[in-house]
């Protein structure tokens, strides 16, 4: 139960999420990768609070990270729905309107 | 051990009462003895019944759904005070209860998805829609009770009702909580997920032990929700002559009688109508109730 152990687990989750976010062809699976990344960051924020500065206001960043996850998921699904309505796209490889 | 017997006894009481009222509604009144024996007969019949599995079913997810429904009900009941102390007195008991009954969303969706059947999937989706609609009024109602007591610990909420029960202080929150208690266990007017127009909905492809555990988990969740109404709104164990645990049992039984009566009185609500009622009527009502209670708390001298 040392800080390095928590941070290594958080870094592992972040990198697994990054791998998923970079490789997945389906937009929903890409969002799952992003969720894993924010999962890692939540754990790191809680570990930093406990081990470095358990002051009264260090938990605010954990609240902010969890709220950011909720916002990201809501907006992500709204964007997926909007793209699907516009062009029937459900794979990241096809969502290339701004490319080139 | 006594907690387990208490839970089984409460589920038995609920099933017997439900059977008695159903018999009366169908025009074949059953006496108390027959009504009490009927749940035992149904249990034995389901225990020896054959389990059923469908083509390309996802057995792991279906099993996970059934098990998590029962585990969630037990864990939710663990923070309800039986008398003075609950089994586990968490400092965030109210939020823990909320988290455990949200597990039912995942459980019913999994049970609907597992058997690879259209009607069971429809039941699972109906429960997700119902869940999204009742969750906000439910959260506001229980947070209003915690607000009036100044703590998230359930024993503190019970202690704060020594003078005045919260049902007098926040009646709208109590009504919203009762409706959401029925909705969280898809009971009564909110049983669209297991309704007859989808041949049993989420539970349509379950048989034998699976069906017993699913129905038992549903009833146990209803008992836990009704039991939670007692410390949150009805004064917990406070009362004149009887000991605290007797009052808790009596009040829980009263809430269960109301919920069973509600089931046999109102028809199943359609999901779009329920979404409309919940978002347009209940959410503003519970928010206004929370504001009123916050003003009362501030006027009394703050927290």
């Amino acid at each position, binding site marked *: 139960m040392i800080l390095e152990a928590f941070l290594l687990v958080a870094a592992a989750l972040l990198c697994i999420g*990054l791998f998923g976010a970079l*490789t997945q062809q389906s937009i929903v699976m890409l969002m799952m990768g992003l969720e894993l990344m924010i999962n890692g960051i939540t754990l790191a924020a809680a570990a930093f609070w406990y081990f470095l500065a358990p002051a*009264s206001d260090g938990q605010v960043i*954990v609240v*902010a990270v969890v709220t950011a996850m909720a916002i990201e998921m809501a*907006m992500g699904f709204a964007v997926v729905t909007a793209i699907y309505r516009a062009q029937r796209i459900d794979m990241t490889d096809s969502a290339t309107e701004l490319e080139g | 051990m006594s907690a387990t017997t208490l839970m089984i006894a409460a589920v038995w009481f609920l099933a017997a009462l439900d059977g008695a009222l159903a018999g009366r509604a169908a025009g074949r009144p059953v006496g108390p003895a027959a009504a009490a024996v009927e749940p035992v007969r149904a249990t034995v019949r389901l225990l020896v019944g054959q389990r059923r599995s469908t083509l390309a079913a996802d057995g792991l997810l279906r099993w996970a759904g059934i098990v998590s429904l029962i585990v969630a009900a037990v864990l939710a009941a663990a923070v309800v005070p039986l008398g003075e102390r609950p089994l586990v007195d968490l400092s965030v008991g109210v939020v823990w209860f909320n*988290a455990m009954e949200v597990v039912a969303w995942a459980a019913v969706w999994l049970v609907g998805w597992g058997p690879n059947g259209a009607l069971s999937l429809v039941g699972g989706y109906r429960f997700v829609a119902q869940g999204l609609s009742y969750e906000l009024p439910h959260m506001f109602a229980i947070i209003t009770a915690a607000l009036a007591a100044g703590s998230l610990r359930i024993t503190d909420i019970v202690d704060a009702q020594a003078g005045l029960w919260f049902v007098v202080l926040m009646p709208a929150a109590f009504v919203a909580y009762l409706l959401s208690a029925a909705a969280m266990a898809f009971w009564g007017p909110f049983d669209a997920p297991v309704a007859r127009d989808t041949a049993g909905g989420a539970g349509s492809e379950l048989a034998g032990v699976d069906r017993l555990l699913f129905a038992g988990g549903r009833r146990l969740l209803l008992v836990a929700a009704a039991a939670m109404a007692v410390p949150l709104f009805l004064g917990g164990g406070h009362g004149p002559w009887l000991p605290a645990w007797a009052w808790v049992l009596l009040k829980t039984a009263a809430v269960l009688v109301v919920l069973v009566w509600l089931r046999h009185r109102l028809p199943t609500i359609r999901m779009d109508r329920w979404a409309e009622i919940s978002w347009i009527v209940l959410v503003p009502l519970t928010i206004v109730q929370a504001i009123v209670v916050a003003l009362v708390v501030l006027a009394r001298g703050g927290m």
Partner: protein
Amino acid sequence: MVLAVFCVLSLLAISSGVLVFVVDSMARATFCLLVSFLAVAAMVLMTGLAYLGVVIILMMIIEMVIMAVFMVMFMMNPAGLMPMSMFHNTRGAAVISGLVFTGLAAGILVVDWPQRRGVPAPDPTVALGEALMGGHMLTMMTLGVTLFATIVATVVLSTGRGRYDRLGDDLDAERADDPAGGGVGR
């Protein structure tokens, strides 16, 4: 004992995170992600943040159920009955992830972390409430306004019919032209 629990939880979090991208069935992938979230929430509970741990459990279960709904809506292979490989550029992504992990791990192990300053408040929940309502009121207000903006933006992005479709070109139809009845009339 605490160390054993921590090891079990961290292995569970990481392995279910890997399983999200390995299993064929998308429903199982969603619930593997839920298991990973619950393991992380349990680890947050271990650091003493009772309220935040239980709130993470609550929010993550709701979010994963909603993600399951969207996943079945938008994906080709929700039950995994036809094993398909839906990856692109795995080698490049593996290199990038490996480099990021090596860099982060090197940083974690090499950096001289400072000493602990202060002790946790006796009731972290009350401390969080007082922080959010007191010194960090600006954070609270920003989060509140951002959440409200998210609600509005989500509805605007995902609704298929705008107000001109519903109420006519001059916005003066008596009843809104909706497929489902009810509502407040506008």
